């Protein structure tokens, strides 16, 4: 330790007291405020300060709302003022501040002079930390929701494909057998119509299953899943997807593949709905240890900063959330009448 003399020490303490961002109160018996530093004065109500300067007795209780203990978020039970011998080296306290209403602070309360019963009470603003925590909580929550949705889709899709479609197929086979039995013309005709409807139904169920979550994504990988999805988009919407991929049949972590697939799906749907164009370019490749997806259209584009949302506004948000799931990066570039480019890159470790 650097040797310091008493005077120097006092000077440092004084500076700390005056300039600290932490609010420091010196508290006497029964919570009487004996002194406070400028940071503390910034927090509490001007009336209380005035009362203090007019030599009235002011208690910390006038501004304190309560603290957090095991039982409640804001409580006065077992108040730190009443039980100085208990450990109050770190706790959370709520203060009624002059500008911001009730605000949480991280506090510590120690006895510094036992004889005269003087304590020091220090407050650190927690608002910012709380916001960070809340954001973290919210984004974790979204991730869980996305994951739950994906799992559920997978389950229903498998169920449709493996059990419903299979059962239907076997009934269809039974029906076909009927045709070779001795039935008259009218029945045969009706039979053919029924067979046609059932075949169509089977096809519809398969489509539903793929729409929910393509089995090819799990079994064959991104490229295969994309190709069949793009074909489907082209047929259903007359919307052409020009796809070029340099991945061949490389496989990635399941989570990454899902994210890439969903983001691309969303990006294409956006182009289809809003870009006033009838084709989009999709490029999939790997470079610099990153899996990259580029979705580009030459449509009407939009203003990235504009608040005038065309859809639910959740699409782009969901794309960002999904990107965060796999620690990727999502870049968006769009200009009115110049089209839109979405560029997704996800780091992939070489052994995957």
């Amino acid at each position: 330790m650097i040797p310091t003399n008493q005077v120097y020490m006092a000077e440092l303490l004084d500076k700390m007291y005056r300039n600290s961002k932490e609010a420091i109160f010196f508290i006497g018996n029964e919570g009487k405020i004996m002194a406070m530093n400028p940071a503390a004065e910034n927090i509490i109500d001007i009336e209380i300060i005035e009362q203090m300067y007019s030599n009235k007795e002011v208690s910390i209780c006038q501004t304190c709302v309560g603290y957090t203990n095991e039982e409640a978020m804001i409580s006065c039970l077992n108040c730190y003022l009443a039980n100085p011998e208990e450990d109050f080296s770190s706790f959370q306290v709520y203060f009624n501040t002059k500008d911001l209403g009730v605000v949480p602070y991280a506090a510590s309360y120690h006895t510094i002079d036992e004889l005269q019963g003087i304590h020091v009470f220090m407050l650190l603003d927690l608002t910012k930390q709380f916001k960070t925590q809340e954001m973290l909580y919210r984004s974790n929550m979204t991730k869980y929701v996305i994951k739950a949705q994906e799992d559920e889709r997978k389950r229903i899709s498998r169920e449709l494909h493996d059990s419903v479609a299979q059962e239907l197929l076997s009934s269809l086979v039974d029906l076909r057998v009927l045709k070779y039995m001795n039935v008259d013309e009218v029945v045969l005709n009706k039979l053919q119509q029924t067979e046609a409807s059932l075949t169509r139904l089977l096809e519809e169920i398969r489509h539903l299953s793929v729409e929910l979550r393509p089995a090819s994504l799990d079994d064959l990988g991104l490229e295969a899943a994309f190709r069949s999805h793009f074909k489907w988009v082209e047929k259903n919407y007359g919307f052409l997807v020009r796809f070029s991929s340099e991945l061949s049949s490389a496989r990635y972590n399941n989570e990454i593949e899902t994210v890439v697939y969903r983001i691309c799906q969303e990006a294409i749907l956006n182009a289809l709905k809003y870009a006033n164009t009838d084709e989009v370019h999709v490029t999939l490749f790997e470079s610099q240890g990153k899996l990259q997806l580029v979705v580009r259209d030459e449509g009407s584009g939009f203003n990235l900063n504009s608040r005038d949302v065309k859809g639910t506004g959740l699409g782009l948000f969901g794309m960002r959330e999904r990107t965060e799931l796999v620690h990727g990066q999502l870049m968006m570039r769009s200009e009115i009448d110049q089209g839109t480019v979405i560029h997704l890159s996800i780091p992939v470790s070489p052994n995957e």
Partner: protein
Amino acid sequence: MNDESNVDYQQEIDTLRNRFGFDFVSIALVQPAEDQFVLTWQYVSGNLNKRYKRIVLYSGKGVAGIVFKTGKPIFMEDVNMGLDSKDLFNYPIIIAEQLQSLGAVPLWKGNRVMGVLLVGFRHGNQLTEDIFEEFQSEIEPVFGSLDTKEMVDQ
């Protein structure tokens, strides 16, 4: 593909387009079982582009799919009134041909719908109920006899 009935279709829709002044007329036909009975726009008149060729509709999807499934005509005097713009992308032919006012009727063969006839204008409110009714009675003699005609290429 080029049997005589094809020529008839093309002629019929060209005539219809001239007769009523439609901007766009098209016929979607159900494809045979090998193609899972999808509907595709086979004959067009007054098209802006060839995007219609890409569209393949399943029963219940798109203009043709809905008419096919329900067996009932669709009539939209003004597309913006009849459809939510968020839902419009589900009707690719409307987007591809920029239709603003349209009607579509089922074409019957026996007791099954085998095709869909679509007529439309590129400006709103041009296809009024009266015109649509007149159009429907006009096509009766031409397309109403479909059940005796062999239309689908087998």
